[in-house]
């Protein structure tokens, strides 16, 4: 081994603690950067990427099987502009009943579009089977993964009671189609058994076109397909642009905070790696002097120290790639669920770019101080030694000594001024850590508030669905049999009112309504009864108090160019009515275009909304399980179903929470490692001074107090800076996220930083600092005084 190699090996081995800290820091920095980077990258147009991977259908055409033959529909694959096509697939629409515990239809009693498809793969709409396997034979069905999320759904049974022989299919898999090309898939031979007597299945064709980037191009493509079949055969054509717009809107809520966290992680990694490596090299100035005295050239010294830093950095970077990739799996899984895309993986480019960047940073951070030291005259390098430059921090030491505090504390207070750049850098890292924690807390609290607000679309302890509904999970009650009976909402309402334990209830139902000045129709939720207690969380204004008033979502206000207090014209069946916007509610339903009003408002213009859901509030002390049993018994005759109202947490919120917690922990870890390294360097550099102090009578507890104080006050100051910065980031990012989701966020959900929380969060910086410094402090206290005194 060359002399240089021996120096490098000895340097790494001699400073084991620093080498280990450097490896750990690099590992954490690389892992955090990979996770943050992967999230940032997959958050860039996730739909487009997944659409490309799945060869998504630009257009999904539905054809009337009575007006076009299979061959005619198949021939549309050769229509102008079509570059690839899949189908025709036979499609039937039929209503199943669920025969398994824990399963719910996405919409009670809604018909399910079942497509006969032999293979999930193909040139268009290459499906992702997310669990189980594809339906390959009779009696099997695969469900749409985006709509069937109940745990234990796999293996459940769907019965179709309205069909001859009540076919019964087993759920063998879940699959995801980006464009939701079907609600369920079966083997083509199964379709016949699912087709009602006398009915003809419709056909579905999936197309990709050479030009499909805009609505106009899609319209031209649709026209080409339409022209290729008999008149009236094309009954529907769903453009991917609609789905893309919806998914991108949901994705947009993710991007601001993922980017915020990603940038935090990357900046902190750069800071910490820089400080750790340059600190380690600077600490070896005296050794550099020794090497020079032995004849090492500045270039050799530079190479030796770069090598010395690179060995632990390489080990750390390799481990960081593994850790980052492993850590990204659950994170990307959450993102995948939130984005409704196919499987996501860390890009190979990130796995290469991040460690390469960190290693380049390591080289730079090592080379600069190593060359600086190597250019010193040998005697200077030897004299500079391991202690801070004489003269630095004297004023601070002088002032601190005058403070009426224990001497160990005042010595600790003055300590960081001896290494101002190192102290400032570690302070910046703690600021970022405190900022991250503050932002994460605020994000979590706001999302919790938003979730509760959004849950107000189904208030009350009990929900009653009128018409056919699945049995409540675990109720033991047999499922209703036979075809769906027509709902009798008035009767359902009466039964709820008569049920002992009912404190209040109201009914609601959705329909479509049109307003002057707004293109297309919007979802209108009509309320009946005493709905005052079921108010949504309001962004501004107040809840509806009677007919003629509407509460709307943010995007509606934007679309109508209106404000709360304004009136808009409701267009009905030949009639119109001026209705007053009395409030803006927190709701993301219908893309932020939802309108909430008294049912009489709609009936006044001839728009009917069937009441298909009741929200029930129970009297105090009422046993909900008993109430449900009794009410379900009463409802059996009228086709209603009572369910315990368990608010579903949005997958987006769950994903955000998971990502927030993971990234915050990584930030804290990186900051803590930075503090650990700084404290190790400081205590090692000052080991002789520590020995002197201990020889003069400084007790172990005082030594610990001194070391902890030296980083503790940096942590305190950093916390005081990081918390308001985190609050400011929260105040900036959350409204952006809300805007992306089509809603404004109520001020009550944004005002999550109360004095007690702020004080606790401000202590976060101190906590990070103390956690990072506690080990070196203990080491400093335990090092034998005689050993310390012998250390040069």
């Amino acid at each position, binding site marked *: 081994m060359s002399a240089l190699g021996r120096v490098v090996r000895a340097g790494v081995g001699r400073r084991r603690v620093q080498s280990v800290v450097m490896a750990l820091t690099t590992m954490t920095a690389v892992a955090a950067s990979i996770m943050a980077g992967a999230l940032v990258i997959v958050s860039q147009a996730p739909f487009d990427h997944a659409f490309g991977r799945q060869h998504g259908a630009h257009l999904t055409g539905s054809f009337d099987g009575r007006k076009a033959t299979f061959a005619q529909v198949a021939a549309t694959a050769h229509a102008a502009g079509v570059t690839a096509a899949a189908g025709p697939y036979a499609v039937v629409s039929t209503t199943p009943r669920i025969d398994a515990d824990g399963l719910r239809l996405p919409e009670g009693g809604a018909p399910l579009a079942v497509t006969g498809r032999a293979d999930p793969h193909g040139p268009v709409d290459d499906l992702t089977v997310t669990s189980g396997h594809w339906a390959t034979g009779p009696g099997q069905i695969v469900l749409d993964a985006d709509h069937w999320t109940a745990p234990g759904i796999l293996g459940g049974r769907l019965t179709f009671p309205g069909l001859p022989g009540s076919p019964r299919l087993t759920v063998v898999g879940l699959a995801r189609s980006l464009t939701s090309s079907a609600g369920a898939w079966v083997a083509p031979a199964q379709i016949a058994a699912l087709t009602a007597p006398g009915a003809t299945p419709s056909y579905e064709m999936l197309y990709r076109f050479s030009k499909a980037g805009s609505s106009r191009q899609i319209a031209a493509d649709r026209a080409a397909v339409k022209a290729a079949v008999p008149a009236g055969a094309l009954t529907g054509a769903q453009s991917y642009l609609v789905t893309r717009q919806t998914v991108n809107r949901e994705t947009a809520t993710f991007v601001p905070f993922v980017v915020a966290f990603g940038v935090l992680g990357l900046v902190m990694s750069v800071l910490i790696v820089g400080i750790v490596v340059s600190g380690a090299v600077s600490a070896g100035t005296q050794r550099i002097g020794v090497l020079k005295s032995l004849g090492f050239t500045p270039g050799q010294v530079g190479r030796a120290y770069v090598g010395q830093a690179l060995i632990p950095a390489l080990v750390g970077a390799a481990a960081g790639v593994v850790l980052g990739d492993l850590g990204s799996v659950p994170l990307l899984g959450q993102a995948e669920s939130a984005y409704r895309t196919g499987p996501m993986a860390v890009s190979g480019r990130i796995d290469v770019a991040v460690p390469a960047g960190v290693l380049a940073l390591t080289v730079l951070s090592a080379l600069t101080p190593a060359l600086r030291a190597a250019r010193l005259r040998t005697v200077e390098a030897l004299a500079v030694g391991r*202690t*801070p430059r*004489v003269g*630095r*921090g*004297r004023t601070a*030491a*002088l002032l601190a*000594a005058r403070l*009426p505090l*224990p*001497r*160990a504390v005042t010595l600790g207070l*003055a300590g960081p001024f*001896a290494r101002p750049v190192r102290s400032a850098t570690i302070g910046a890292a703690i600021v970022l850590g405190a900022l991250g924690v503050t932002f994460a807390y605020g994000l979590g609290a706001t999302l919790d508030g938003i979730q509760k607000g959004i849950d107000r679309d189904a208030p009350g302890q009990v929900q009653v669905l009128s018409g056919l509904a699945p049995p409540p999970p675990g109720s033991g009650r047999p499922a209703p049999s036979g075809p769906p009976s027509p709902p009798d909402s008035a009767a359902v309402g009466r039964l709820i009112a008569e049920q002992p334990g009912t404190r209040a209830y109201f009914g609601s139902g959705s329909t479509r309504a049109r307003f002057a000045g707004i293109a297309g129709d919007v979802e209108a939720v009509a309320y009946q009864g005493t709905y005052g207690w079921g108010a949504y969380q309001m962004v501004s204004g107040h809840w509806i108090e009677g007919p003629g008033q509407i509460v709307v979502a943010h995007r509606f206000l934007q679309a109508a160019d209106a404000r709360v207090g304004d009136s808009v014209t409701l267009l009905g069946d030949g009639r119109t009515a001026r209705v007053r916007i009395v409030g803006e509610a927190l709701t993301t339903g219908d893309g932020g275009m939802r309108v909430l009003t008294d049912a009489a408002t709609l009936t006044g213009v001839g728009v009917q909304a069937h009441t298909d859901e009741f929200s029930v509030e129970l009297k105090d002390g009422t046993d909900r399980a008993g109430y449900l049993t009794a009410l379900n018994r009463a409802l059996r005759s009228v086709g209603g179903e009572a369910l315990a109202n368990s608010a579903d947490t949005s997958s987006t919120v769950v994903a955000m929470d998971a990502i927030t917690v993971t990234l915050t922990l990584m930030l804290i870890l990186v900051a803590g490692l930075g503090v650990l390294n700084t404290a190790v360097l400081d205590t090692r550099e000052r080991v*002789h*001074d520590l*020995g*002197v*102090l*201990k*020889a*003069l*009578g*400084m*007790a*172990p*507890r*005082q030594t610990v107090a001194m070391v902890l104080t030296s980083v503790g006050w940096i942590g305190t100051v950093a916390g005081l800076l990081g918390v308001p910065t985190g609050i400011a980031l929260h105040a900036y990012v959350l409204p952006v996220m809300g805007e992306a989701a089509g809603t404004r966020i109520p001020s009550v959900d944004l005002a999550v930083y109360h004095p007690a929380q702020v004080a606790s969060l401000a202590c976060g910086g101190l906590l990070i600092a103390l956690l990072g410094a506690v080990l070196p402090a203990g080491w400093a*206290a*335990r090092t*034998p*005084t*005689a050993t310390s*005194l012998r250390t040069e």
Partner: protein
Amino acid sequence: MTTTVIDIHDVSKRYDEGPPALTGLSLDVAEGEALAVLGPSGSGKSTLLNMIAGLDRPTEGTVTVAGTRVDVLDETASARYRRSRIGMVFQFFNLLNDLTVLDNVLLPAQLLGTPRAEARQRAGQLLDGLGIARHAGAYPGRLSGGERQRVAVARALVNRPALLLADEPTGALDTASGADVRRLLADLNADGQTIVLVTHDLALAASCATRTIELVDGRIARDERTAAR
């Protein structure tokens, strides 16, 4: 009746490797004595000093200083012992370069919790008495070797220790400064300060020690009381 300040009884010290540093060493030092410990490198001088200072523990035997069994103290008690009972002067001064002369001298008193005014008064007296009061606001790096060692002595005495330990106090000084420190230690002993000094400097031993022992291979090879100075 003379009081025994140091009572070392049958002390041995063995490290993991090599021969024992001390072997069955017993030694009494009376109040007011100035004991010079001589001997070649590796004879156990520094080990003996560390035992007395509570910086190291014997493998066997007992060390009692001013009535305190030093060999059984834990780290905290040992630190308290050093604060209150002994003062230490080192070959290379061991002053903290980022503290002024006054702050260096005040340090042991502050660690002991001496009231601020009292500590400053005592430090002022010492600096004045040692002729370095004009340097109170200066930093150690600007002083000569002799002046630095005077600062170290002032720091060692600020808590009025029963025992002053000096490890090669003239080892890093030029001739003139060395003579200066020799005079200082002799004067302190003349004022009644008990001193144990480890040195190679025979002139130092001759000028300020009232008793001299010579260690060879961890044993006392010679123990002599010197004539009155």
